[in-house]
Structures are given as C-alpha cells and as structure tokens.
C-alpha cells in the first residue's frame, strides 16, 4: 500500500479493498462507543421530541414552541433554530396532515441539511509529511485529541512526529510526552517559554529528515479575542510554510461541546487567523448536546470532522452526520 493511500484511509477512516475481519470488529466497537456516548445525549436531546409529539397528527403552535425549546436547549442557537422552525412551518402549510413520523423525518432532514460533513477530498501533493495544526481556546481538549489522532495514525502504520508548540501552559509538554510515548510518536520539544514558531520549524525539519508520514502540531490554548496571541498563530502557520510550502495541510479547530453560542465567535476568529479546515467536537460523552456544531455548520460553513467521546485513545471518531442524527433519533431504548 502506498503512503498516500494509507494516509487517506487513516484520515477518512475508510478501508478500501483489503478490509479484514479485525477491521470490522473495530468498526463495530466504534459504533458501540458512539452509541454509548450518544445515548445519554439522545435521551435528553431528541428524547423530548417523542414525548411532545407522540399521538398527535398536527403541529400546533404549542408543539412548535416545544420544538423550539428543544432546539434552543441544545445550543443550536436562535438563528439556526428559527431556520429549522421556518422550514417546519412551511411544511405544515403545504401538507396539512402531519404525523409524528413525518415530523421526525423532516426534522432529521432539516438538521442533516444544515450539518456539513467533512467532504473535502484530500488533494495530497507529493509533499511529505502531511502537516496537521491543532488550534483552539484553553481547555477544549487539544492535547488529548492529538494523542488520539496520533494513535489512529500509528494503528495504520504511519509514522508520526508531534510538535510541542504549547510552550506556555505548565506541563503541556509533559502531557504531550506521555501521549507520544503511548502512541509511538516522535516528540519535538524545546524548553517551556520558548518560541512556538521555532518549535514548529524544528518539528517540520526533523520530520522531513526522519521521513515521517504525519506531523501534528499542538498549539497553546488561546482566547480568540486576544489579538496578539491570534497573530502569533498566524505567524506559526507562516513559518511552517517555509519548510514545506503547503504546510499546514490541515488546520483542525477543537471545540468543546459544552460551549454555548460563543463557539461561533471562536470558529470565526480562528478561521480568520488560520483558515480552519475542519472541527473536532470534544466531550460529547457528557450531558452537552453539541448543538453548536449545527449552528457552526450552518452559519460558517466549517465542516465537523471528528468527535471526541471520552478520555481513552479509542474515543475519537470521524463525524458522520447521518449516523450522528440517526443515533439521536433512533427509537431504541
């Protein structure tokens, strides 16, 4: 198997021809993890729909209100919620008799329409390594996500170099060191407090001479309204392109699913500074509904690529909107 094919597979999570049984097993397992993680979400999130809708054949104002409440309580946000409701009302006007199932299907469709999945096909150049830069505000789970990503690449026999460019937070480098040991990745680091751009430069240089397949750059958490720190991010990005013209090939913004409407502003500002390619939505195994993903997809056109469902290495999954929405709606349990 050639390098880019392998890379693509590990990035898209799809195995092309030679998918063995062990692979099916892991898929099954990952489906279970997703389901387990989302079950709690489902019960509180769309579970409410069934309560409010079963046995009725029309949508009354009252019911529309309760749908609105459910949407808003999931952090979908006013604008996007109203969009969904507007669509729903249009449908009601057209088809006078609506049954519960139809409403379900319609809501599913509507939300799926708003949700962007990471469709962008990787246009791999011959540039190696493939460089991924991970950004986000403090405490969203950047380092953990990187550990999980490195694990996935490692599983697919790709060599990984991690750049510890969070030189600010206490013990950030140590944390990354633990993860790199766990995942067989090479870690490039400097002292705490050193220039993050220089760490990135070193990382890419070293990855090149070591013939690494993938580079993952960890950056310090920063609030999106801190102009200086955001400028620093732009600089880090620029420095990388000096070693490798198209680097970083992918910028992943990590968002915490418990975050409210501020996530939209975060996505906006990080995009401005680094042209974010996709989002990793973390902490979806809690009670948070992650509805901001829908709002961000709708308003900013940034696709969701990964979801984080726990603290162990296997708890990172590719975001699949059909699975995501279907699992939320499924009538089991």
């Amino acid at each position, binding site marked *: 198997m050639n390098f880019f094919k392998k890379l693509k597979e590990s990035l898209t999570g799809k195995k092309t021809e030679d998918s063995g049984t062990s692979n099916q097993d892991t898929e099954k397992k990952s489906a279970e993890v997703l389901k387990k993680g989302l079950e709690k979400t489902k019960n509180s999130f769309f579970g409410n729909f069934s309560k409010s809708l079963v046995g009725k054949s029309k949508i009354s104002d009252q019911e529309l209100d309760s749908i609105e*409440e459910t949407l808003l309580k999931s952090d979908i946000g*006013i604008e996007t919620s109203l969009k969904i409701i507007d669509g729903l009302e249009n449908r009601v006007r057209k088809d006078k008799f609506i049954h519960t199932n139809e409403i379900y299907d319609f809501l599913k469709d509507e939300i799926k329409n708003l949700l962007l999945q990471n469709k962008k096909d990787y246009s791999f150049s011959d540039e190696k390594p493939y460089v991924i830069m991970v950004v986000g*505000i403090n*405490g969203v789970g950047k380092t953990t996500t990187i550990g999980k990503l490195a694990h996935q690449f490692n599983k697919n026999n790709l060599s990984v170099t991690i750049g510890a460019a969070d030189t600010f937070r206490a013990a*950030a480098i140590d944390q990354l060191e633990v*993860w790199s040991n766990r995942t067989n990745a090479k870690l490039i680091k400097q002292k705490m407090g050193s220039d993050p751009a220089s760490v990135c430069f070193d990382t890419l240089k070293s990855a090149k001479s070591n013939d690494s397949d993938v580079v993952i750059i960890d950056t310090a958490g920063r609030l*999106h309204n801190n102009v200086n720190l955001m400028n620093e991010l732009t600089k880090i990005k620029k420095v990388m392109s000096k070693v490798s013209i198209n680097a970083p090939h992918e910028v992943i913004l990590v968002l915490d699913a418990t975050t*409210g409407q501020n996530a939209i502003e975060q996505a906006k500002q990080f995009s401005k500074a680094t042209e974010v390619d996709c989002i990793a939505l973390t902490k979806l195994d809690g*009670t948070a*509904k992650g509805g901001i993903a829908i709002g961000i997809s709708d308003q900013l056109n940034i696709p969701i690529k990964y979801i984080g469902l726990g603290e162990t290495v296997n708890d990172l999954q590719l975001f699949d909107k059909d699975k995501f929405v279907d699992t939320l709606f499924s009538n089991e349990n």
Partner: protein
Amino acid sequence: MFQNLSEKLERAFKTLKGRATISDINVAQTMKEIRKALISADVDYKTAKSFTDKVREKAIGQKVLTSIEPGQLLTKIMKDELAELMGSESTDIQIERGLTKILVAGLQGSGKTTFSGKLALYLKNNKKLKPLLVACDVYRPAAIDQLEILSKQVNADFYCERDNKDPVNISKNAIKFSKTNNNNLIIIDTAGRISIDQEMMNEIGEIKKAVSPSETLFVVDAMTGQDAVNTAKNFNEVLDFDGVVLTKLDGDTRGGAALTIRSVVNKPIKFIGTSEKMEGLDVFYPDRMASRILGMGDVISLVERAQQQFDEDEARKIQKKIAKNKFGFDDFYKQIQQIKKMGSMKDLVGMIPGVGKNIKDMDIDDDAFKSIEAIINSMTPKERSNPEILNGSRRKRIAVGSGNSVSEVNKLIKQFLQMSKMMKMMQGGGKNRVMDMLNNQMQRR
C-alpha cells in the same frame, strides 16, 4: 456578537417608545426579544423565561417619567432584577481558625488546576495563609506536573503521591502532611469529570467525605452553554458545593451560564478567572456581571482592554514629547499601532454604551488606518519628527509615494497639527486631568 445583544434590546425597546405607561400589550414583544437576547447570551431557556416573567410583572403599570424613556426604565428594572438574582454582593471565602480545606471540582478543561494555583497565591497574599497544593488528578497525563510547576510559580508548598492512584487516600495523607508541615490552608485539585460518570462522581463524593472541606468550589467555564443546568445540578447533588468559580471571563462570552447556575442551584459565585497568569483571579461582582450579560456597554471591559494593550512607558515618553512640543508623526504612528492592538474598531466602538445601534449599518473598516500609515511611511524620518518642514513639494512627493492625492496628505497634516495643538492645551491646563480620570477608572477595576 457584542452588538447583537444591545441591538436586539434596543429594537425591543422601540416598541415601548412614546408610551406613558408600560402595559401588558406593549411589553409582550419586548419581553420576547429580551428572552431571545438572554438565550443568545447562553442563559438557560427556562431561566430566561422565568426571568422575563418576573421583569414583566414588575414593569407593568409603572409610570414612565417624561425625562426617561420606557426603555431606560425597563433596563433599570431588568438590571436590578438580574443583580438581585446574582446575589447583591460578593461573598468571601470561609477561612477557619485552624486548617482551611478547599476542594476544587469541575468538568474537564474548565480550569481547575490553574484556578487552584491562583487561589493559593490569592489567599497567601490577601489572608496571609500558608498554602499546600494537593494533586489529586491521577488520571490526566502530566496533571500532577502542571500543579507542581504552578505551586513553584506561586511559592506554595506542594503535595503529591505519584504512585498512588487513589485520590481519597492521597487527600487523607495530604491533611496529615499539612499538619507536620505547618500549613494552615490546603487546596485539593481533583480530576475533571463528566457529571454523568457515576464512578467518578462517587469518587469526588468520597473525597469530600474524607476531607470534610471548609469550602467546596465548583469550577465552570464561563462559555458554557445550555448544559450548565445539567452539570451544575448534577455536581450540586453529589457535592452540595459552597460556591462557584467562573473561568475564562477574559474571553468575549456574555457568560449567561452565571445566571443559569445561580438560579438553578442558588449558590454564590465567588471568584472569576480573568487571565492565564497566576494573578488573574478576581472577586465576583454581581452588578458587573449583570451588565455584561445584558450587554449594556462594556465600558469597564474597554478600559481593561486599553490597559492591557497600552504600554505605559511609551505613553509617558509621548507625554513628555507633547510637553516639549516635539510630538511628531512617528509618535502618532506608534499610537495607531497601539490602538490597532486593542482589537477591531467596530468591536471597540461597540463597547461604548449607546453607540451600538448607531454603527450597526456603518461599515467601520479595520483598514481605516492603512492610508494614514502609508502617508506616514512615505515621509522621511526628518519630516516625521519635524512636521513643520512639510512644504508643497515634500507633500507632493509623499502623495505620490503613498498612493494618495495631495489633498488627502494635506488633510492628514492639518488634522495632525490640530491634534497636537489640542494635546498641548490639555497638557498645559489643569494638570493632566484627563490622564488622572483615566487612571482612576483603571484603578477601580
């Protein structure tokens, strides 16, 4: 985002304009808008609803004085109600005569470890206590190292057991250790946990039982959305915590979660985190938070931001130059760079109360300074420090060099001369009254 909310409120208040009393009918639409605004600020759906219901009750029948607009009256009612809901004054931390024990809990990434370090520094400086920081996060890689580094930074004692995976046991041992080590304050940092993880929630319950802390503090990210209800409730059920810590308030979130948590569990918010630095801990002021959630002009934030970005030494140098009438274009250029660092112009202007609605449709270009910068860049160093030598031919050269017309160059030079004249005047009369005012504002924070 900043404008959004004030805009919505202003639009909402329009329906009230020109009426003598606030009645049921003219208030209904307003309340709906306010509710939406609150939800956009991440206030929980139900909390927002009960809040607007209460405000409506208080507002209806109120006579509107001719001097103020109904909107203003409503704003006042709302702000008072909010502040009351948030607790009318700040609550201090419980210090015990012997050993004060503080347990810190919360979700992953909410900022527990950073807060623990900050609290140690704060209580060391303000209450003259001798803190011991205890690392009970045995799960996250390098969590122990992180707390150890922070404890060194704030000069606090540190306790950990790297091979012990039982946080209940560690915390018990830490208390014993604190007695021999003569600490009168111990702060226990725990692992982040999701509120529906039964095992982990049991664990924190056990720690609390074993320690019987003087205060249990629940740390929560100010950016939390609707989930704040569940998390706060679940943590409170297990821990019955004494206070809340809101972190990451240096972001631009409205922080509606503060209102949600307060109304759901009725526990005071005690501290707020305002930066990544160890000094970035502040006591919670309910009225300031009320203003923030309502978006009623973030003057304080504006001053804070200005203070953050403003280089005092530079300012002093410029002041001296003005006094000596030596303020040149290069100083002007430096000032522009400082203003630019403070953020987008629209953002800044939007923070001034009442301005919000006026600039809604105006497109404030962040590149507004570009042509000014170009003109200054096209001057020779000599011209910059001696603007009076700028004659016709020099102006023409500058215009060509910067890609502007001569009249634009003239305009800038004229404005600049007026400005430096004005600054000279401000300097001369009344002993820096403007600067004093600004300084006072800053010190009040």
